[in-house]
């Protein structure tokens, strides 16, 4: 991120693209164009972008219903993401998955999962495959703070640790699971890190609003995994600027807390550190906005899935 003098602009642009994308999804939702539920990541961009810069091409990534940022950071084309969220035929899942399930096999994006914790064992399976095929990949699995209380988290961490699998677990601790403060539902301070010892793992807590800190922690964890030294569990402290989903204003959160975290916005933080002028930041923002708008226009012009799509891909073609 530092070799190239313009590298930091690239990092910023990635975060801005995500931010603008999420803003547009919110408007689409308000305009009634996005159905069901959608969960935005404004404020959490640094985790996704830092992770993406640390991983190697082909490393599998599994994330959650709050996964726009991770999938975009790993290369999911904005148009494909928009089209999916809008339920169009050109979406990354042909419109059959939706906002909560962005997936792209060509990018080793193994899916966004909407049942809490369910993807962690699946990610462990992906990592296990790497030890069997020796493909050199390291799997990355992202989940929230609230997810540390569900059984599948525990089963998956234990198995990954016993089998010393090449996997990096990232807990995005944004302090809330839906409307509930994490402190109300776990008996420890750090829902992930304070549990690492239960799996023989190191305790790692990082500033999730600092792209560079994320990149470094994930890189180290990736190296460790590559070297056959097993999994890591990284707890990245961050915050969502908005509510849990859709129309939630998030007003169960103390105003001071929200303000504190807004002041730690990952984008301004990074821009400040790299002395990017306000003007330049605005230019980059405009660039991101343009790209997002173009992608959205294309997605909106795309057709709904054909009626035949309803019945296809329940089974493989071979078998049906």
């Amino acid at each position, binding site marked *: 991120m530092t070799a190239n003098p313009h590298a930091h602009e690239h990092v910023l642009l990635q975060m801005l693209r995500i931010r603008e994308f999420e803003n547009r999804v919110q408007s689409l939702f308000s305009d009634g164009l996005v*159905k*069901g539920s959608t969960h935005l990541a404004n404020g959490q961009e640094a985790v996704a972008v830092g992770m993406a810069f640390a991983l190697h091409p082909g490393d599998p990534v599994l994330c959650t219903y709050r996964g726009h940022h991770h999938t975009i950071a790993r290369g999911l084309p904005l148009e494909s993401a928009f089209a999916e969220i809008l339920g169009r035929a050109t979406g990354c899942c042909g*419109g059959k998955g939706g906002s909560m399930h962005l997936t792209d096999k060509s990018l080793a994006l193994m899916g966004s999962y909407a049942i809490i914790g369910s993807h962690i064992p699946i990610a462990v399976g992906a990592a296990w495959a790497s030890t069997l095929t020796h493909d050199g990949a390291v799997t990355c699995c992202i989940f929230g703070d609230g997810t540390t209380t569900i059984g599948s988290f525990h089963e998956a961490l234990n198995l990954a640790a016993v089998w010393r699998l090449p996997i990096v677990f990232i807990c995005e601790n944004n302090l809330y*699971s839906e409307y509930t403060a994490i402190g109300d539902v776990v008996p420890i301070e750090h829902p992930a890190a304070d549990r690492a010892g239960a799996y023989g793992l190191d305790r790692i807590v990082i500033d999730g609003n600092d792209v560079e800190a994320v990149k470094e922690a994930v890189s180290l964890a990736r190296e460790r995994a590559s070297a056959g030294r097993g999994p890591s569990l990284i707890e990245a402290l961050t915050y969502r600027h908005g509510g849990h989903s859709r129309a939630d204003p998030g007003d169960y959160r103390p105003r001071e807390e929200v303000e504190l975290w807004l002041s730690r916005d990952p984008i301004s933080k990074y821009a400040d550190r790299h002395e990017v002028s306000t003007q330049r930041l605005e230019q980059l923002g405009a660039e991101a906005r343009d790209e997002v708008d173009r992608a959205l226009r294309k997605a909106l012009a795309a057709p709904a*899935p054909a009626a035949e799509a309803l019945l296809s891909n329940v089974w493989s073609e071979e078998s049906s």
Partner: protein
Amino acid sequence: MTIINYRKAIAEAIARSMREDPKVVFLGEDVALAGGAFKTTVGLREEFGPTRVFDTPISEQAIIGAAIGAAMRGLRPIAEIMFADFLGTCWDGIANHAAKIRYMTDGAYSVPIVIRAHGGAGLGFGAQHSQLYDGLAMSIPGLKVVVPSTPSDLIGLFQSAVRDPDPVLFIEHKALFDVKEEMPPEGHVVPLGKAQVVREGSDLTLVATGAMVPVALAAAELVQDRRIDCEVIDLRTLTPLDMHSVLRSVEKTSRLILVEEGPGICGWSSEVAARVADEGFWMLDAPIRRVCSPPTPTPFSESLESLWLPKAESVAAEIESYW
């Protein structure tokens, strides 16, 4: 006259049961301080306080287990599983424990719990947030299954569910949240195991549940023009199953169509059809038809989801195909 919608009827139903019996407690994710992910439990924490209404961690197995254990110690817990799809994460607790403990202990212990879950498609939630889990639940002896289709049935059936000495899975259809009805009076109770004839007719029997009840009624209206007079039955509970009402209707009409949301494979409609094909065989003048969703997960895209759901028009077409 007070009007209440299905969404608000949920909190009303819970509140009535909690007012009646101090042993009723309520737990689930985000149900207390936030009033529920769907705002279906607003006001309960305020009315009943933190010793009766509980927010839990995200741990469905712990929620179900806690409810079972507390019930075995004499309480009457209501446990919310936010989306019926999540029942898969705690199925062991429900199917292997709650439903079997009375039998396995030959009656020493009972498990009077109500598990509430929001189920059903139609809102664009995709494959992992749109299921009903009704057929799976119905297949488990020892578990009762309730699927209310109107606000007042919801309130009345819920009172029976909470008073019931056995575990009950209570599936609230989230596509019905805006359905309105007159608020039923205090003390309104609908017994489990009694289907409701929601439209009388003599030519053909339609049986439906949940969000398919309005679909069946609309289909009945559509064919009315063609002078086909349908009877429509809302089963209301799947276990106990009111076969008596179904058979009485088929005796009159000799024709039966079952309208089920979801693929219906090994669903309630297959069970009802199988029982009519046995007990009611000689009453039938024509094949038993089922109108179900195609055998696929629920697609996300609005256009596909709408194709997936049984429609009044397709039910009407099936009806007309008999004549």
